[in-house]
């Protein structure tokens, strides 16, 4: 399966592990939150990177005490109309200060991709039947942004008032 980062296809280094599967040695594995809860101590002891996947009714606050050990949080979009994970990404970044990878999995549509990057999601796993190039195209559709989030895109408001970073540093 392909993973997209900034619209560019990447090899997927992570293995999503079924709850009854044994973690392969040395592999980067993503476990469900239920498994993380059940095997927390042993999983923390593993030598390789661990990711945890959250269903759309599982708030990332459940992982608040474990984020130091979690290199990837996978947020599920069971239906593209279920938008809870847009807020979960912001909770992870802004409230919990998480700096690891956030990945969107499930029914992730191209028309949502730019929103996902804006709220702090790094990578997505697009559904197999979708044209991968479309996701890169979606990132070029807008050059103006109204909402300040935690990405690098400057808002119309800051640009209007010369508060953007480039202007600010040029003036300094």
């Amino acid at each position, binding site marked *: 399966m392909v993973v997209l980062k900034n619209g560019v296809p990447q090899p997927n280094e992570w293995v999503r592990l079924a709850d009854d599967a044994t973690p392969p040695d040395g592999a980067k594995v993503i476990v469900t939150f239920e498994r993380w809860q059940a095997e927390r101590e042993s999983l923390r002891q593993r030598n390789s990177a661990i990711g945890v996947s959250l269903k759309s009714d599982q708030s990332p606050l459940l992982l608040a005490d474990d984020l130091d050990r979690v290199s990837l949080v996978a947020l599920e979009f069971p239906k593209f109309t279920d*938008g809870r994970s847009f807020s979960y990404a912001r909770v992870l970044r802004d409230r919990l200060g998480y700096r690891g990878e956030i990945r969107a999995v499930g029914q992730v549509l191209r028309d949502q991709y730019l929103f996902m990057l804006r709220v702090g999601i790094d990578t997505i796993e697009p559904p197999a039947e979708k044209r991968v190039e479309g996701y890169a195209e979606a990132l070029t559709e807008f050059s103006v942004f109204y*909402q300040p989030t935690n990405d690098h895109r400057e808002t119309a408001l800051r640009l209007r008032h010369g508060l953007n970073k480039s202007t600010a540093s040029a003036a300094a």
Partner: protein
Amino acid sequence: MYRYDQFDATFVRERTEQFRGQVARRLAGELTEEEFRPLRLKNGLYLQLHAYMLRVAIPYGELSSTQMRKLAFIARRYDKGYGHFTTRQNIQYNWPRLDDVPDLLAHLAEVEMHAIQTSGNCIRNVTADHLAGVTPDEVDDPRVWGEIIRQWSTLHPEFSYLPRKFKIVVIGTETDRAAMRTHDIGLKIVRNDAGEMGFAFYTGGGQGRTPIIGPLVKAFVAKEDLLSYLDATLRVYNMHGRRDNIYKARIKILVQSLGAEEFGRQVEEEWLRIKDTVLKLPEAEVARIRSYFAPPTYENLPAYIPEFEAKKSADPDFGRWVRANTDVHKVDGYIAVSISLKPVGAAPGDMTADQMDVMADLSDAYSFGEIRVTHRQNLVLPNVRKQDLFDLWTRLKAVSLDEPNIGFVSDIIACPGLDYCNLANARSIPVAQRLSRRFSDAKRLSDIGELRLNISGCINACGHHHVGHIGILGVDKKGEEFYQVTLGGSSAEDISIGKILGPAFSYDQITDAIETVIDTYLDQRTGPSERFIDTYRRIGIEPFKEKVYGGSKERRPAAE
């Protein structure tokens, strides 16, 4: 009026092209109808009974004459020569083709208009008091804040896939002309004890299947914190609002299930975390937006204009129209004029392209080129000199836009109903037409006095039936149209939810039933100054029930 700068103009062009691409992908088979549907809805495009319907945003109900002319152009070119103004101050076209919509939107973008977020499970186009900026006793102009909210909510990356739709309204006075507490968030601009301006948040109101009067969740949010408090509210809703049942997915259900106090506590907790971050509104941006809403250059005029007063008594028709269709203006010598879109026998809120052009011309001639749309589906020329009023009325009369019925029983709110709408159970417009013919006599109308009659074609309540003094709700009984009557609702500052009168009436019975309700009021009122709603509140529903159902639960036979 607000004017787009380079950022706004670029944005709307980009959004138009994005939608053009979405339509192309739908036609090319890259998007299924299931995937396309939410995308087209977020751009105001519905598939209705006979055709597509496009809902065009009129942010906070304000239009320029140039924009009105463009709406007329679109009505002629892409529709059948008319449009329908809605209870959310927008306009709907009933007959566009899917493959024409991208070009239609490009025409709208030329005059700084769009259809963004006029539907879908996102933050809808923001509405406001239609007398914003001209009514006396306003704490501040709601349009300024409406525009700030419009920009903040437009293609919000976090809040574009909410559990359900989300409606925000702003008013600046104690008098409520915008049904403030029937919204997901009703914002009332207020002053605190220190004299600072801010917002009271009434969160979790709504109509639909479960009508709820929005509780006060926070009495004062400082103006620089408006966006952070909105953000916090929406985040709590997006994470915790129900997604398992469409009828329980609005924020009102969340607020009710947690209790307003606990809901407010959760918002507060989130808000305290973010209030001093990037969402704090810089004064410079507020000032920039405010400058667009600076008052026009009013003349120095006396409050009392003798020739105007003389005309009112000399021409009783003019006098009646002035009494019914005008509101006090904050500037001496000026007046705010309502243009009724409810002439006898018309479809409430409908307007032909020719009439739109006339309105544009009249607004240029008499009102600084500015027009407002009201949530009661009428138009307003907000800035007319009293001395011009007779000329304006004469010109309105020539095109039959002079119906003197604002606030009266024939000033009916009606949704499109089963004549157009895919969701409707029963027709609304023909019921409104029959009622307006029944109550067409001007003297009878003014004798009955203020009476708000609202009609919805289904329980979604787009026609605001719960908050009409008299509400009519269309229901389906085995494929046939029936109408349930509610009494005692109000959407004003004395807001209340109407109570069901009794068993529903057939299409042919409903006009007589309403007339009986109104005759009962006329019999029971203490005098002409006691409004229908006052009489209802004094005597309750029983006397009405007795008259309408003849003391038993049996319906009266249908009239011939």
